[in-house]
């Protein structure tokens, strides 16, 4: 059995104003406050293209290895829905701005990108019931209407749901690095529709099924897996798989039929007469290319080469530009790159992940982590204590030195002050000492543990171990 997956992705662009009018984009604004004659489809209003949208689309196109077209054009996609005030969406149907790109997955597999085009978002609807047909009342907020989108269409090059998820995450990391999209799927800033079909072992191919409303990275995988299973079962039962559009329901974790092929709209695409042909010059494209930020893959490559980081660590750090800039600052403060990457990946990111929040450099100032790493490396505090301090910094934002002092975490490594405590432990554990003398050297650990208890964890366990041996061996009297 073989599965074929293609994705259609919509990304909201982070421009200050809408695609075809001067209205502000602000997700927190009160409903219907950022609207004007253009984006509410008043009679006689005309669209004017926001140049920033073109720049962002070109950036995204270049970042995913697309060919950027010097000439592209806008078209109208006609359909009726209350959140679409003009009765048509302005899009690029016949001549998109970018085509023929690709992204490589970790496995080395290449997923080709067919096209990227510019279009506008619709308004947002709130229904009194489940959906518009069952609702007595529906409310429309036109603030989102006209927010610029790019639609990215892949070739059906993926064969596993994991690949689709990885593609989405990779794309998100790129768009975030470019600062053209927040990449937030839960908020709808990044949306994914998956086209899934299955070929069974007898070579019978199912129709293509489109799954919509996938609103998180996890669900990309779940929804596709569910759909593969559903289609396979229909094939196994010897039935025909309907060519249809289905919606992912994250509550039941199933897909439900939205409409069959026969119910699909005829969008009556035709060239948008209100907008001239979109022309961008070669030099404009070159200029954007020159100013592209370093992309996650390039960054990871550099980290592995320049700092000898492990691939996993390099990938994790480089995919988020806030994390990578944090890392680079730490390195610039003369902290060993490998140490820096270990602390960031193993300790710091774990804290944010535990709270399911985005990495935020303000929560643990770079200077604090630097101090903490230095204290640990010099043996002043133990790795365990350091972890505790990091947790406290993350929670309260307090200065690491204050926390160490307050909690009395400085390790005791001064021999003279440790010897009495060790002698006391040896005296209290004579039977263990006997075992040592019979050759069971492993009991040293037990004695060290007791010394640590005795010193309330402040002793440097390495130093204690050496001293315990020396005293038992009679080297210190």
């Amino acid at each position, binding site marked *: 059995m073989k599965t074929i997956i293609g994705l259609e992705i919509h990304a909201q662009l982070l421009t200050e104003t809408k695609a075809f009018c001067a209205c502000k984009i602000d997700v927190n604004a009160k409903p219907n406050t950022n609207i004007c*004659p253009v984006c*509410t*489809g*008043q*009679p*006689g*209003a*005309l*669209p*004017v*293209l926001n140049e920033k949208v073109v720049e962002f689309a070109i950036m995204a196109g270049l970042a995913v290895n697309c060919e950027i077209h010097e000439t592209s054009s806008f078209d*109208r996609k*006609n359909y*009726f*829905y*209350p959140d679409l*005030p*003009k*009765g*048509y969406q302005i899009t690029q149907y016949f001549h998109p701005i970018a085509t023929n790109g690709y992204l490589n997955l970790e496995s080395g597999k290449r997923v080709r990108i067919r096209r990227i085009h510019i279009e506008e978002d619709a308004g947002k609807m709130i229904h009194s019931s489940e959906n*518009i*047909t069952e609702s007595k009342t529906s409310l*429309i907020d036109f603030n989102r209407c006209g927010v610029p989108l790019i639609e990215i269409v892949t070739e059906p090059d993926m064969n596993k749901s994991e690949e689709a998820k990885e593609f989405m995450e990779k794309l998100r990391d790129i768009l975030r690095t470019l600062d053209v999209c927040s990449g937030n799927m839960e908020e709808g800033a990044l949306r994914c529709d998956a086209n899934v079909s299955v070929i069974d072992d007898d070579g019978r191919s199912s129709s293509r099924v489109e799954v919509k409303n996938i609103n998180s990275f996890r669900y990309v995988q779940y929804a596709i897996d569910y759909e593969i299973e559903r289609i396979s079962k229909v094939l196994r039962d010897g039935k025909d798989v309907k060519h249809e559009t289905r919606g992912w329901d994250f509550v039941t974790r199933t897909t439900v039929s939205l409409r069959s092929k026969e119910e699909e709209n*005829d*969008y*009556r*695409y*035709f060239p948008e*007469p*209100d*907008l*001239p042909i979109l022309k961008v010059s070669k030099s404009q494209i070159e200029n954007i290319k020159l100013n592209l930020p370093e992309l996650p893959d390039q960054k990871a490559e550099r980290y592995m080469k320049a700092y000898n980081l492990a691939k996993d660590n390099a990938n994790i750090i480089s995919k988020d530009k806030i994390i990578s800039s944090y890392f680079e600052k730490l390195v610039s403060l003369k902290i060993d790159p490998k140490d820096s990457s270990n602390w960031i990946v193993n300790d710091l990111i774990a804290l944010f992940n535990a709270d399911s929040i985005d990495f935020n450099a303000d929560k643990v100032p770079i200077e604090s982590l630097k101090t903490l790493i230095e204290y640990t490396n010099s043996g002043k505090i133990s790795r365990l204590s350091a972890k505790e301090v990091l947790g406290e910094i993350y929670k309260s934002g307090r200065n690491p030195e204050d926390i160490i002092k307050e909690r009395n975490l400085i390790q005791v490594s001064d021999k003279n002050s440790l010897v009495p405590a060790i002698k006391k432990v040896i005296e209290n554990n004579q039977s263990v000492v006997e075992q040592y003398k019979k050759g069971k050297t492993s009991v040293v650990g037990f004695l060290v543990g007791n010394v640590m208890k005795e010193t309330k964890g402040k002793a440097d366990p390495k130093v204690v171990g050496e001293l315990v041996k020396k005293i038992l061996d009679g080297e210190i009297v």
Partner: protein
Amino acid sequence: MLSKLSVEELIEQIKLNKISAEEVTNHFVEKTALVDPKIKSCISTVFVKGGDGILKGIPFMVKDNMEVTGTKTTCASKILENYVSPYTAMAVQKLLDAGGVVIAKTNMDEFAMGASTEYSNFFTTKNPWDLQRVPGGSSGGSASAVASGMVPFALGSDTGGSIRQPASFCGIVGYKPTYGLVSRYGLVAFASSLDQIGPLTKNVRDAALIGNIIMGKDQKDSTTVEKQMNLLKEIEDPIEGFKLAIPKEFTKGLSDSVKNVLNDAIDNFKKMGVKVDEVSIPSLKYAVAVYYIIAPAEASSNLSRYDGIRYGLSFDGESVDDIYTKTKDEGFGREVKRRIMLGTFTLSATYYDAYFDKAQKVRAKIVHEIKQVFNSYDAIIGPTTPSVAFKIGQLSSPLEYYLQDIYTIPANLAGLPAISLPMGKVDGLPIGLQIMASRFEDEKLLRIGRNYEISRGKFPLPEVIL
């Protein structure tokens, strides 16, 4: 009598302190109150004053498909019967800024689809030359208002001849500027690639004067272009040595009476030392067919927004589809529905290539063939309409109406500037001469028109018997 004066003459009277700007405005407001009940040019009378400028106190009317803040903009449709404009169209704003005063919104065929105002949802406007006849359309309200002296000028819109044909029927001047010269911002779209705003005036000089004010690149209309032009500057420079072309396709089948009037016009040009040749533009025979594919296609999309959700007529329904169906069924008239259906059909996936795409190709061919003519000629001339104004109710089939625009449509398809100005009378009714020039040669167009106008001599305005 002030009502007979041109815009320029009125400006002169005010300048010489013979009359105040306020008195001028009031005169025309009163005149409208007297005459309009007979002619029925106006859908609503309004009073929107502008700033201080060359047009200070000069009243004008605006076709009811242009937005003027606070006024109803109905497009003569039930679906927008109570729609109040939240903003002002750029062309109107420029006239207001120049001091003009809007005193009425004028009748038209619903959404500018028609050639007589008979397709207005409200009433049919009458031709001031003969109240039994139509004023032409779709800008029939604006044309009849100027012809009957209610205002010295008015704005119309021209998608397939909607300024020029009523100008021809009413014996006045109607000027459609080059596509892209005047902002369409605030003009309710019928067919966006063809629509253009222009003035209806008593003479060519006024058309140039108003044209100068309303033209110009507008940030809010991406299809406008920056062009430095002064339509008045050289308007009376002689045109000796100019070459004009009359396409065979524009004279075939003309009645003898119209031919005679046209020949008089040709003689006038020849007397001015202008060469007039007959040419052939074979693809013109497809112009009407192409137009009736492209215009309804764009219209079907442009009119989608009237859905009863945000503004305008709205019916409650069982479902969204029910709201749409009831609203559109009740709100749109027969001709508008016909064109929406036609356009929806030609754009559908199955028929796009056979109709819309093919029409676009033929349109390109027409543009090309006309361009060839302009390589050798300064302008193309012919009658504006095949005949004079017809009687109200006289035409019965849509096709008869569609053929009204047979000579005017090519200028829209090719985005050319074109003007209609009176060239004579047939059976006591006026008929227009149409002149078309190359894109952005509006200066030359109006110069040819003005020279002809002088050679022809004064053309009378109709006397409306109250």
